[in-house]
């Protein structure tokens, strides 16, 4: 009821001001703004362990053995596109440090997040929690599928996989 009244008065103010004649009541619209709502995903349909993107645990089919060559590729790609903001230790730089990331998140979540960051920042609860800490949206670095997978392998190596 209250909002309806306010709305009506804003409309009236708008009508007046559009003709350049009447008084404007700008302040009202400012004080009645609703707090910013996050667009958290519906838990019934969203899998926070997987995130949003094209990768699933099945499609990734991670083994328990490290691919050394792939990890080296991942290190090279990371040096161009990632390590400006992420340290290999647990220390936060711009974004969180990578130490332990493969234990905190599933492989598919990491793959989805690094290749599809914007939709996940809009709805994934974990990604949003990190954004509140870091305050810089993780950029889309236009990673190819191969490069993204190599980065994951480098993260796994960093977390001690042999």
């Amino acid at each position, binding site marked *: 009821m209250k909002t309806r009244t306010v709305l009506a008065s804003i409309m009236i103010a708008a009508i007046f001001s*559009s*003709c350049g004649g009447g008084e404007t009541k700008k302040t009202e619209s400012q004080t009645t703004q609703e707090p910013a709502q996050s667009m958290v995903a519906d838990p019934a349909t969203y899998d926070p362990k997987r995130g949003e993107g094209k990768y699933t645990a099945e499609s990734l089919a991670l083994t328990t053995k490290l691919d050394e060559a792939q990890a080296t590729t991942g290190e090279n790609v990371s*040096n161009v*596109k990632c390590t*400006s903001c992420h340290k290999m230790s647990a220390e936060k730089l711009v974004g969180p440090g990578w130490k332990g990331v493969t234990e905190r998140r599933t492989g598919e979540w990491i793959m989805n997040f690094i290749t599809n960051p914007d939709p996940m920042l809009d709805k994934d609860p974990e990604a949003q929690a990190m954004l509140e800490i870091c305050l*810089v949206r993780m*950029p889309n670095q*236009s990673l190819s599928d191969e490069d993204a997978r190599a980065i994951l392998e480098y993260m796994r190596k960093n977390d001690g996989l042999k």
Partner: protein
Amino acid sequence: MKNLIKIVAVTGLIATTSLQSCKPKDTGNAVSGDAGIKTYVAPGKYDEIYNFVSGGFSGQMSVYGLPSGRLLRVIPVFSVDPEKGWGYSEETKPMLNTSHGMVPWDDLHHVQLSKTNGEYDGKWVFGNANNTPRIARIDLTTFRTQEIIEIPNSGGNHSSPFITENTEYVVAGTRFSVPMDDANGDVAIDTYKENFKGTLSFISVGKEDGKMDIAFQIKCPGVNFDLSRAGKGVSNGWFFFSCYNTEQANTLLEVNASQRDKDFIMAVNWKKAEEYLKAGKGKKQAVRYAHNTYNEKTHSATSEIKTEVIVLDSKELKDICYFIPCPKSPHGCDVSPTGEYIVASGKLAAVIPVFSYDKIIKAIAAKSFDGEFDGIPVIKYESALYGEVKKPGLGPLHTEFDADGNAYTSMFVSSEVVKWNIKELKVIDRQPTFYSIGHLCVVGGDTKKPTGKYLIAYNKITKDRYLPTGPELSQSAQLFDISGEKMKLLLDFPTIGEPHYAQAVLADVIKNKSLKMFKIEENMHPYVAKGEKETKVVREGKKVHVYMTAIRSHLTPDNIEGIKMGDEVYFHVTNLEQDWDVPHGFAIKGADNAELLIMPGETQTLKWIPTKVGISPMYCTDFCSALHQEMTGYVRVSPAGSNVPIKFGTGVTTPEVAATK
């Protein structure tokens, strides 16, 4: 009761005044009620048309969305643009090099979208430099100037950059005739008739890469070549130029170049010229001109000075050039979609003559000539004429076409657009423009298949159309709906610089080709830093090279010491972002040039010569993230001869000691 009446009366008065205050004053009679809906493009929605508009004396090209009239981009072309670092960064400086050295300004009059089969193919857009004769090619994946070629033997490049129907050639005809570059130009000005020549340059355009090269020039009598158009369809293989000052006056042209009853349209058989060129009939001439190209892999331009052109002499090599008499000082010279009709607009004439290509060819075959002008045959007016549009208005300038056999001519003196039927030569409609229209543009209006729908008038005088802004006002364009028989004014919108010619194309031809960013993996810049591990500061004598990276939201290195007075510091900044629309800027206190604006994946270089001992802050100028204000750094400048070592780093307490070559 009495009171009640008073209240009603007062309310009525308020209603009346408020109604009046809502009603626009000037355009009330010219604009219909639904004009607003027709130009409204909802927030977040795209316009349906790109409009490429010349910036005139701004030297740049602007891009508008239609029908909204929203300014989408200003592309720096011939003038420096400190906002984008154009002409200030080390990479872009060579683009403005000429045989006169670095020229930071020009006057861009005409635009031409590249064509395949006489229709826009969305690859490139060309622009001319009117003052220091040049042609630029802008790539439509990046919307950036990729190539600029200077035109030798030319005094002012006005009848340019018009192109043939498959973009085989882009043309440059000189507005001001001058002595040829290899002649002794130190002559009395009143020897015009003897010493001054006009040249027409045919610049070939690479089919795939768009690379320009001066294929040949045609040496012509000294007159003023004003505008030109390529033949198309039936007249493909020919080019038509309007010529004024056939009096060959060299002073007070306002009077002396308006003496003759008729000037000329020059018809040029460029296919024939090609044959002569192949047969070795051209003469090599020593000249000097700059050819500048921008490489999107090295993100750098190079400028090359070239020293030779091949010249064909129109007097010696008969059957390339023919003059057609045309009433008083023709300006526009426009070819109908079929290629059959050539519409010439005499600025001072009371009729619009329409020439027939078919009749021109027959007149040449029958030698229906009226003597020669300076060695060039003059076709009899009646033998080339299809007909005249009688009493079209005052001061006809330019003509564009729709898909239904109609032509639209701008009338400068009577300030109107006149629609007329080509076959019948009858005026159908006329609408006022506010004020003094110069060029006009119909969507696809110079192609073999015009789109029609909208016409845009580019006006020379704005006066009271917008809120006053002191003595100088922005210039003004006006959008008309031409889908019906009568033209309807929809919208006024301001333009940058002075708009001359413009072209409009359906957005679908271009929008999906637009590049979003440069791939960092493909960056071949000699000073790129692909990742922070490659950042460094290298001293080479007095030159110091800073290999810097930028990513939301820090510069690396952001602390630099060991710079000394007398050094030349080059900041090579690589933007490590790989997402659309995340440029970073770079500026440092006291720099005597401009900022850099670096696109994702690109490297750009700012040269900085410190002028004071002390600490100079530097920062990112383009708001990039919530921590943009933190994207800063310091450079320590020590006196010349100081022994402060080079140190640099980001986020480290003890900066690494630099490599020294």
